[in-house]
């Protein structure tokens, strides 16, 4: 077997034991890596109904067959577990040196189970695993922890760590790496915290097996240069993702005041031009030559790394239009290890709920100073308000009542990315059918949708495009474990990914082979979902109700008076189900599962839920 090492490291924190396990070539070809590995391992090893913040939950760190080689934008890893935010499978990816160090240590993935007795740091060096005290880092933020680890081991180690948010099990705490990178929006950092696992540090010295190392090296270094030149020519990284903000403001898609509004005359104050002007440095992931991380000095003078989702959800959606203050809110999320997007949506929801009288409080849109205090209270779970915010917008809405769930901007408990879909049905569908909830990495069609179709269309073509993009974004990029940016932003061809896969493995796959694995991974996430929620209905695939509400329609601008039509949305959803081979609840049928080679997994699901 080439490309894959064939080993998984299993670590038990309760017993302080570890062992190397092997997997077969059949397993490798069926699931490839990253999300594919994680979704299968967690399905087989977790019993439905377990407490995601209990010792029964498991953390999976997974890489792909091209991780650790110098191919463009492959310096990422997947972190996954049962989500404390959504109650079923959740994952995320983040840029980290773990991508190559864990593979060089001799593993394609690791599983962490049990719970440590005291705050612990795992140190992995090739075949050795040490269970070290993390007491000096416990209670400290991610910047402190990262520096502490670098001081001890140098900067050439892979690091995954959590902040106070993870320690205190904020349901949307993330895993952090490289000081500016974060992943695991569905609370994977909280799962680490629940295990008293402060950090994982990895160092590897072995060679990663590849079918054609010479060809891989030539291709990889050549393409790193190619991508860099394409980026320079296009100018994309001048603003990186932050160009999206001005565009969303122009097409009535910007989240403003918890998505009450779709644009703001103040948006220019926090747009990509202003960010570029304020830039103090640029950062990227390993194996990246189109770096996207622009840092600025925040209000307090910290270096804060911003991208569009941060600025959209901690800025415009909170009605904060001072870039330095957005930087401050973002810095605190990073320091505490909170998901910036969920934190933005949760604070915005809280301000909205107070304004609408669903609850009492002292937080208003635009109050960045109070926002900063609230983030600290949330990360520390301080007092009633801190504990409430730590639960996330959906649980808060259920607590508040007064129909506030309608404007909790989430799907299945996971908060939306920074696209306000008052009148963008395809993007609303992408959020609705995001298998883990409204995750930005897979829920996206908006620019294709607005470019190629009319805004009020709910046709089958939009469902088909959502599926096509899911297969690419939530499928191939997540099981190969690579960043998507060279593809759309620079026009680097998708064919490059099976090309690298083949160079690594010696196989002869095409994109069609990739789509089969993608569909398999998506169906597995749906099986996770239905066995946890056997009474789930298609309503779980609806976007936030406020987008259907005529009273919420814009009063002026390009979509004045417009809103999503609930009956048409439901028909669009049915198009999606029909094309996917899902039943009326949005669950893959047994026939679909059989075609994907998932009959055994279907039989396992039927112990808990009925399949069609």
């Amino acid at each position, binding site marked *: 077997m080439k490309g894959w090492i064939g080993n998984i490291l299993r670590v038990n924190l309760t017993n302080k034991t570890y062992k190397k396990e092997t997997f077969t070539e059949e397993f490798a070809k069926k699931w490839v890596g990253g999300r594919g590995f994680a979704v299968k391992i967690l399905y087989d090893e977790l019993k439905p109904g377990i407490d995601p913040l209990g010792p029964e939950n498991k953390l999976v760190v997974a890489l792909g067959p091209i991780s650790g080689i110098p191919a463009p934008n492959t310096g990422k890893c997947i972190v996954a577990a049962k989500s404390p935010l959504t109650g079923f499978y959740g994952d995320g990816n983040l840029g980290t040196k773990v991508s190559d160090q864990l593979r060089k240590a001799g593993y394609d993935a690791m599983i962490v189970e049990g719970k440590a007795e005291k705050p612990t740091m795992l140190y992995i060096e090739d075949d050795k695993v040490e269970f070290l005290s993390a007491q000096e880092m416990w209670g400290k933020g991610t910047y402190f922890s990262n520096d502490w680890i670098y001081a001890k081991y140098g900067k050439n180690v892979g690091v995954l760590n959590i902040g106070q948010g993870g320690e205190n099990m904020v349901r949307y705490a993330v895993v952090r790496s490289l000081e500016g990178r974060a992943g695991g929006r569905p609370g994977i950092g909280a799962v680490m915290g629940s295990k008293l696992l402060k950090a994982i540090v990895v160092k590897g010295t072995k060679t990663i097996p590849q079918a054609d190392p010479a060809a891989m090296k030539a291709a990889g270094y050549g393409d790193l240069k190619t991508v860099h030149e394409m980026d320079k020519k*296009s*100018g*994309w990284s*001048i*603003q990186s*993702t*932050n*160009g*999206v903000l*001005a*565009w969303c403001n*122009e*097409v*009535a898609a910007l989240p403003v005041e918890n998505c009450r509004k779709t644009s703001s005359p103040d948006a220019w104050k926090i747009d*990509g*031009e202003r960010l570029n002007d304020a830039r103090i440095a640029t950062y990227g992931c390993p194996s990246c030559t189109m770096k996207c991380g622009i840092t600025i000095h925040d209000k307090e003078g910290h270096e804060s790394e911003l*991208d*569009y*989702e*941060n600025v*959209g959800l901690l800025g415009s959606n909170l009605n904060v239009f001072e870039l330095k203050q957005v930087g401050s809110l973002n810095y605190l999320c990073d320091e505490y290890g909170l998901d910036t997007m969920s934190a933005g949506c949760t604070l915005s929801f809280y301000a909205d709920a107070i304004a609408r009288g669903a609850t009492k409080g002292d937080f208003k849109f635009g109050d960045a100073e109070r926002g900063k205090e609230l983030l600290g209270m949330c990360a520390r779970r301080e007092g009633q308000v801190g504990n409430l915010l730590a639960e996330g917008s959906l649980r808060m809405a259920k607590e508040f009542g007064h129909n506030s769930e309608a404007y909790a901007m989430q799907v299945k408990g996971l908060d939306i*990315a*920074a696209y306000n879909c008052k009148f963008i049905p395809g993007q609303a569908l992408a959020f609705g059918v995001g298998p883990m909830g409204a995750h*930005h990495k897979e829920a*996206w069609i*908006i*620019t*294709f949708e*607005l*470019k*190629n179709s009319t*805004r009020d269309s709910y046709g089958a073509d939009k469902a088909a495009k959502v599926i096509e993009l899911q297969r690419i*974004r939530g499928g191939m990029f997540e099981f190969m474990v690579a960043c*998507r*940016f060279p*593809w*759309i*932003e620079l*026009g680097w061809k998708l064919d490059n990914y099976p090309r690298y896969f083949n160079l690594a493995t010696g196989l002869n796959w095409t994109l069609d082979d990739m789509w089969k694995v993608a569909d398999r991974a998506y169906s597995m996430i749906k099986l996770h979902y239905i066995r946890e929620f056997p009474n789930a209905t298609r309503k779980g695939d609806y976007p936030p109700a406020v987008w259907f509400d005529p009273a919420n329609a814009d009063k002026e*601008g*390009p*979509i004045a008076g417009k809103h999503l039509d609930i009956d048409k949305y439901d028909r669009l959803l049915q198009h999606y189900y029909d094309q996917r081979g899902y039943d009326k609840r949005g669950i893959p049928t047994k026939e679909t599962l059989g075609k994907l080679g998932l009959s055994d997994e279907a039989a396992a699901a039927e112990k808990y839920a009925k399949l069609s």
Partner: protein
Amino acid sequence: MKVTVKLIGPLIYAAGFSEKEITLPNSATARDLFPRIKLDKKRPSIITRNGNAIGPADTLEDGDRVVVSPLYSGG
């Protein structure tokens, strides 16, 4: 006629402006703007007029706000 042109992201730096009013002959199309903004026609882009997408061949009108953006895959 006069239209306001707003550019997004990297297009600003290629054209040398972010937003400005441009005078065009009557019945000009969106495509007529391309030389004025140095748009790389090989790269996919999206053009909107007053917030809704149009094609390169669509005729512009006096007072339009035209936004040209590269395609983004998000943040």
